[in-house]
């Protein structure tokens, strides 16, 4: 348990635990009157982005001297971020009349989580938020239209759309796999 406590502190879990619910409730309150996929994606992105700052520790080199395997721990950490962000969103939207599909939350959460993993590997744990947020910005501002548009706005597509599931799945596998194996950039 002592390990878990220290780990949680070095991965900014207390901050995330305070900031994520607070910001989710705030955004939901702002967007409640027009709760649409746009706001759901934005809320989910924000939760993942804020929690993703903990994907790297204070000192990556020091971490690696530990006498245990990091693989399962990294994987668990990343997946936990996704699960908690998704659950928080699903919980808060129960307060209102309009709800976004669970399948959409699963798809978008998985894809954005993968992007967080990729960002952590490429730029470092503190910048795990950059790619999910960048993706959300692009997805939210791309209008409907050609196939190129659909690729860029996969988080906004209907859940019937196979392409969006493939893209989200690919990002998820790439991000979680890469992060689990390599860890955050030092």
């Amino acid at each position, binding site marked *: 348990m002592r390990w878990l406590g220290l780990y949680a502190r070095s991965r900014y879990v207390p*901050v995330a635990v305070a900031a994520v619910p607070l910001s989710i409730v705030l955004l939901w309150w702002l967007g409640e009157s027009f709760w649409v996929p746009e706001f759901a994606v934005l809320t989910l992105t*924000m939760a993942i*982005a804020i929690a993703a700052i903990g994907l790297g520790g204070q000192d990556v080199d020091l971490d690696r001297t530990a006498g245990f395997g990091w693989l399962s721990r990294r994987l668990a950490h990343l997946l936990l971020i996704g699960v908690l962000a998704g659950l928080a969103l699903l919980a808060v939207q129960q307060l209102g009349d309009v709800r976004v599909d669970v399948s959409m939350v699963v798809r978008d959460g998985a894809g954005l989580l993968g992007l967080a993993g990729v960002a952590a590997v490429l730029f470092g744990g503190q910048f795990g*938020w950059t790619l999910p947020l960048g993706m959300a910005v*692009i997805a939210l501002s*791309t*209008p409907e*239209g050609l196939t190129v548009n659909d690729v*860029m706005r996969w988080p906004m597509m209907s859940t019937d759309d196979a392409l969006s599931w493939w893209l989200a799945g690919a990002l998820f596998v790439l991000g979680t796999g890469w992060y689990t194996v390599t860890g955050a950039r030092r």
Partner: protein
Amino acid sequence: MVNALRTELRRTIALWLAVLMAAVGLVFFFSFTGPWRRDSSAWGLDAPATAQWTRYLLLLVWPMVVGAGAIQGMRDSRSGVSELFASTSRPAGHRALTLGLTTGIGAVVGYLVLLAVGFVQVAVNGGMFTLASLMPVVLGLLAVLAGVAIGLGVGRLLPHPVTAPALAVLALVAVMFLEVSSGHGGDADGLLPNWVALLSAAQEQPRSAFLVPSAAVDTGQFLWFAGLIGTGLLLLVMRSARARLLAVLPVVAGLVGAAVVLPASAADNLTPDKAASELVCDGSVCVEKLHEDWLPTLAGPAKEALRLLEKLPQHPVRVEESTEGNNTTVTPRRDPELVLVKKDDTYTILPGTQQAGYLTGHDLTMALLKGAGTPPCEGLSYSHPEEEAARRVMAYWLAGSATPPPLHEHEYKQVPGLMQSAWTALHAQPEPEQLARVAAARQLQLSCQGDPLTALLGGAH
């Protein structure tokens, strides 16, 4: 100084920021279809709209700029060298300003690349450059710098890893929320007071090639962005708690100034660009300077339409291009002396073909004659089949057609039947009565009170 800057440019993400901004912007403008590709206010067609579209793009880019500023702002504390640098004799302000300058240069370069690509396209397309496009450029650059400054300042003030994502998300939420809650340039005001919506770094999408933000909007936004920049820089440079408290002064001053200056009603947000909307005439047919090359297309059909309209007792005497924006929620302006036409409204599926294009010749004449030379009262004519049917019957009657207006493909279901009955009822009457009914219908379209179809059918009006 130059050396220090060069080192900083290599060491910071400033260059990456420029690349990111340009890449995101160019992908957005070139690979996606959207209103920036259509209409006469498209990106890259004329300078005023191009400058405004580039500022509209800040909707995507501004959160990135703010996030990048925050990442840079907390660089020292992230590397754990704050104390080390505090112990050197070099004033902290110097280092902070070099950092600010580099990040600012990165953001400005990114924005200017986008503008340059847009303006090169304007030149290639033979578009018009006007002085009024300068203000959106200046304000766009100021908005970008304000994003950098706020990011740097807050990053320096609160150097926690969560600051950067929180600030970037906050910026995104702010621009998006201001965008959805603005009045969209119409008479109807949005969720928020108009002046609050105007505080956004991003601008609403331009809906007309001629309209540019009014002087009040420019001044107010200038004050607001200047305040943001001042606060960001003070937060970056100041070290003591008291000095940091003073840093709120510029942004508060900017906000107060903006609140005083910015227009209270969305109707005052835009004003015609004088250079672009100067009239160029061929006899009784006038277009705006910006669309001078459209005049030869318009002149012949427009004169023909005016000649046919002379049948009516009170008929318009000139055809003029309207400077109004494309806004389906606003009733277009009308003038008994003028036939007002928007170039974008003549872009449609060409009759008898499957292709879209600008109407020419006889088709253009018929379009001008719709409603006997009046604009529709309801913004979206196809959702009001009675009005649409009446307007087309009036056009075909004026043109002296022997047959009722033809049916279009993808027609709103009620329109054909309504046109047929109005046509039959109208032609059952003697010639003077027909004329009186069409003239009455035109008056109704000019006042927008009453149903022109009833007038054609001879009912009470």
